[in-house]
């Protein structure tokens, strides 16, 4: 922002770094609680994208016969459903996190951004489990497990950045306007259709592609799928746009959040 705001932004960041242990403790807490009933916890992470994949395969693979870029539709959709499931878990959790932790906010000081950020990160464990199933499916469908898959976890970085940015904005708005929580599921659902989960991005008419690619989820999910499909290669240009927009959104979210957070304890 302007010159006056810069030292403040630095201070805000350094506070966050100072409290990094709390950040990881909160991630650890969220994961721990989610997996406390071990059997159910771990299987949820797998079942959710897996059942979505089954339903999508029936509906879009068999009935609607959507183009799956030369591979079986189940693997085509599952490769996108794994990062998608992370997103649809992380954004509502993060967006509602300040309200859910209102007791902490009104009783203890710490950089408030830790709460939505740690919530967004806690979904990565689920992502890890769901990714293992993907490898199993690739073997089942006799697809080559290539070195390109090493990029798979790397693509989590822009996805986490984007989800955190959205989660932070929603969480701060949520404190001020309590009806924001009703818009989060709507937003997430809309993103399912605006991102290439069900369909390949290439099937979109070219005139819409130019606008749709501004949605970071497009480039990110397309990249996840590209390393799985032997028929595809990563569209680095598309992913580059997604990463830059995600980073810009995170910066914007941080600025908005740091201004809104002063009032949190009085509002929650």
């Amino acid at each position: 922002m302007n010159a006056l705001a810069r030292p403040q932004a630095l201070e805000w960041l350094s506070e966050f770094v100072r409290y990094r242990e709390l950040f990881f403790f909160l991630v650890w807490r969220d994961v721990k609680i989610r997996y406390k009933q071990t059997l159910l916890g771990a299987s949820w992470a797998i079942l959710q994208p897996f059942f979505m994949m089954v339903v999508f395969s029936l509906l879009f693979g068999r009935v609607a016969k959507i183009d799956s870029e030369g591979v079986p539709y189940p693997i085509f959709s599952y490769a996108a459903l794994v990062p998608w499931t992370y997103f649809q878990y992380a954004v509502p959790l993060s967006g509602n996190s300040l309200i859910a932790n209102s007791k902490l906010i009104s009783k203890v000081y710490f950089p408030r951004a830790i709460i939505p950020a740690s919530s967004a990160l806690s979904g990565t464990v689920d992502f890890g489990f769901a990714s293992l199933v993907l490898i199993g499916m690739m073997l089942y469908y006799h697809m080559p497990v290539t070195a390109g898959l090493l990029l798979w976890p790397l693509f989590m970085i822009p996805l986490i950045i984007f989800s955190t940015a959205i989660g932070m904005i929603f969480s701060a708005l949520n404190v001020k306007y309590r009806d924001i929580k009703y818009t989060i599921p709507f937003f997430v659902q809309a993103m399912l259709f605006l991102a290439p989960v069900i369909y390949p991005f290439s099937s979109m008419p070219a005139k819409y592609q130019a606008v749709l690619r501004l949605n970071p989820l497009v480039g990110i999910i397309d990249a996840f799928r590209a390393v799985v499909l032997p028929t595809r290669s990563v569209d680095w240009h598309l992913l580059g746009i997604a990463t830059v927009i995600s980073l810009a959104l995170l910066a914007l979210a941080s600025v908005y959040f740091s201004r809104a957070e002063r009032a949190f304890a009085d509002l929650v």
Partner: protein
Amino acid sequence: MREAILVEHLTKQYRLGALKHETMLREALTSVFTLRRQRRQATTILALNDLSFSVNEGEVLGIIGRNGAGKSTLLKVLSKITYPTSGRVRVRGRVASLIEVGTGFHDELTGRENIYLNGSILGMRKKEIDARIEQIIDFAGVEKFVDTPIKRYSSGMRLRLGFAVAAHMEPDVLFVDEVLAVGDADFQKKCLNAMDDMRSGGRTVLFVSHNMSAIENLCPRTIWIDAGKLRLDGPSDEVIASYLRTFSDAQRAGYDLGDVDGRGGNGAVRFTRVDFLDAEGTPASIFRCGEPLRARFHYRAQERIKDPHFGMTIHSDMGTRIATISTWHSGYYIPTLDAGEGTIDLWIDDLFLLPNRYYLSLWISSTGQWYDQLEHCIALDVEESNLNGTGGRGMSARWGLVYLPSRWNLEPRVEAR
């Protein structure tokens, strides 16, 4: 000596409208179109009003004042939980604030896991917790259950665990808000000792409490906050004495409670008056140790109230809680209270308080709700009586606070010859 805390012209304003009403985005949007026509009337209150004071390093400062005087808001501003509306606050060194014990505890996690979680929330490093975990477990006295989820803990165990974590932080500045008001006497003593250790360790401590004896024991200096302003600042015994003097003057037979300020609760039902009566039902203004006491409380309910509890707490002149009496404790069930006025009578068959001045706090509540809370609103002077026919022998405040009815029997009993 350096200042650890500096507070200059601190003011904190709350918008009451914003607190009572959750803002909806829909309203914010429509108010743009209607040009603020139906903007809500926001009433503001000054929780802190131009407050200034400073505390030196290593000093232990007590903070007293009625409910709603701004004590808790002050601690929240000092610990950066909330921001001041105007004025300046500077706190030097590492801060720990105990506004609630066991903040962030999670039911599903074990005692040990919660120690780590709570410790890090309070600002401890993992290394520090690692180094002190055995001491913390020992202090809390939960060795056997430390790997059990705390949903199985009793409320006392949770409290002990929470305080144990807090007591093992090593902050430069510590803020404590009334956490000692709960827990059994044994544990309270442990907490006070722990705080005493912190004091002797050269830490700066700010201690908010209604327990006047704890304040006087721990804090050489006390400030009294009244309606967000600094009313008095000085040696604890002097400040406490003048604070308690404001509650009431000489003993009377009745008190109007309709417009006492600084009361808590939502006001759905409030005390309006209390009359003291003797055994025959005539107004009484003298109470003697061991004699009956009858109080008639007048109330006014704004609406129909379900299952209300009326209660009274007796404090010593130093603020120690001596006894709590309530309809709930006595099992006197009141199904509903209709809107309007009424009275409720309380009989104490034998007032076994030793001659001294006592303070009464009154409240009306129901499960999870406070309707009315009046702290130290009435002074009660108890006089000697001719108990046991000894002419009041042993009836003095220096023997303690209560008289316990008792009998003696010696064997073999030899009659005087």
